[in-house]
């Protein structure tokens, strides 16, 4: 029984890392031909190309970071108040509101983005970074709201009343009482909103019209043009923020199914 468990664990671990291994090897390979099990020559050429100015990878990395940061910031600013309303109050039509917030998180991007392209075309938002940031709110905002609704459901508003009765202004109440209490939730929700935006492909492709080349679009181009070595290097760069974020939040996501649901959709 124990050895069976050990074997199962080994199979599981192997399968979980397996798809990442050829990507990592390719990034250091010089012409890795069939049927060689490992490359005959190793090189840093793909990495130096990816990190050089000519490949456009660094510019794309900066663009992807900027778009994800902007979408995350907007999700926090819009999502925290909405989360407060859903977490603290019962009101008529609440179920409908929850349904309207849940829907964009479940409905696949392709279903809404083709219609949105028409709307954005009229507004001059297609092929622009602003348009891409806005379309990323479709998957990131619902997630942020749901996380904050959970945070506010456990928030005791009496400490705000106490601060007010002691003479604090609304701004002071928020700055010194509310914000410190909800900050851990904002950080976790924000990091996951960041990862969701970071992973978007079809929303960026349709609204950006191929002109806003974030890392996944660049990765797709290199992967389908057969540049396996550069694809490997970009792939490694692309998964790095997720690993960093995991290192920051690993202890938090184990016990929170809500948080996991968000990243899983990323």
């Amino acid at each position, binding site marked *: 029984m124990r050895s069976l468990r050990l074997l199962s664990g*080994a199979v*599981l671990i192997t399968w979980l890392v397996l798809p990442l291994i050829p990507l990592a090897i390719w990034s250091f390979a010089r012409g890795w031909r069939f049927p060689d099990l490992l490359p005959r020559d190793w090189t840093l050429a793909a990495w130096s190309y990816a990190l050089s100015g000519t490949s456009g990878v660094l510019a794309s990395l900066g663009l992807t970071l900027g778009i994800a940061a902007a979408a995350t910031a907007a999700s926090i600013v819009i999502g925290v108040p*909405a989360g407060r309303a859903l977490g603290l109050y019962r009101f008529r039509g609440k179920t409908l509101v929850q349904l*309207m917030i849940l829907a964009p998180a479940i409905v696949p991007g392709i279903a*809404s983005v*083709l219609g949105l392209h028409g709307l954005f075309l009229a507004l001059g938002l297609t092929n622009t970074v602003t348009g891409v940031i806005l379309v990323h709110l*479709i998957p990131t905002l619902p997630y942020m709201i749901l996380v904050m609704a959970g945070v506010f459901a456990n928030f005791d508003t009496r400490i705000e009343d106490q601060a007010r009765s002691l003479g604090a202004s609304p701004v002071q109440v928020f700055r010194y009482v509310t914000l410190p209490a909800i900050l851990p939730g904002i950080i976790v929700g924000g990091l996951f909103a960041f990862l969701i935006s970071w992973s978007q492909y079809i929303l960026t492709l*349709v609204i950006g019209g191929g002109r806003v080349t974030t890392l996944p679009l660049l990765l797709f181009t290199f992967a389908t043009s057969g540049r396996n070595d550069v694809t490997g290097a970009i792939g490694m760069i*692309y998964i790095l923020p997720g690993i960093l974020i995991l290192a920051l939040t*690993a202890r938090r996501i184990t016990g929170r199914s809500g948080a996991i649901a968000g990243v899983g959709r990323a």
Partner: protein
Amino acid sequence: MSDRWKILLLLAPAMLIIGVLFFGALATGLVRSFNYMPVLGLTEPSLEAYAAVFSSPAFGRSLLLSLHIALTSTLLSALIALWAAVLLRQSFPGRRIATFLFQLNLTVPHIVGAIGILYLFSQSGAFARLAHATSLIARPAEFPALVFDPYAIGIILQYVWKEVPFIGLILLANMQAIGDDYESAARSMGASRWQAFRHVLLPMLMPGLLSASILVFAFAFGAYEIPAILGASFPQALPVLAYKSFTDVDLAARPEAMAMAMVIAGISAVMILAYLRLTRRGAR
């Protein structure tokens, strides 16, 4: 300020964004799927696009393929996740590594997983090379087609790789919340390990397992980049076919793309209703 106004003000920005970007987009898609696009000179609403889509053999094959991808991926992921969660709850050397990899895998974008599966299972990929090294095959073409194949095996492998950790972590969180007491009670009254799992733990995990499975189904049904990288050129998954019609040089194909987007939206609406029913029941 009354609570009513407060709630309204707190919700307004979010509802405005979701209302315009998501529901406005769906409404625009719906209108255009009825061949109503004044920009292109289409001013007579009709069901032509739907008629064209539903009578085209390519659409039928694509719809079936996408349903097959979603259903098979979800069933396999749910079963393997159940097995993995039960395994990860017990102690064995390497358990911490496996749990860490579960979480790590969750942060890896699907497109990276798809390329990884491509490099593993293509006819000149890692497994084909292993088969050559062990003299099972002489040429790449002798290796079975596991990617770009009509059964979408590569696509399903990618979803299983990504979604087992997703469902598995939700199950682990549920198991943590349920605790060991119920199973221990069952065991102390003479239930076998299997009976305690089958009749005590599994029914308690079911709502979480089903709602996670619905999310996986909706995603696997509607995702674009995974079938675009790993799929065959015929039949194509429905999202790939819809995008192809959308970018067709013939603008008349646009309403058909919108009609396909509406079919995808309709199927996910059914998924949302199922999800709501399940999570409601789970909450009670």
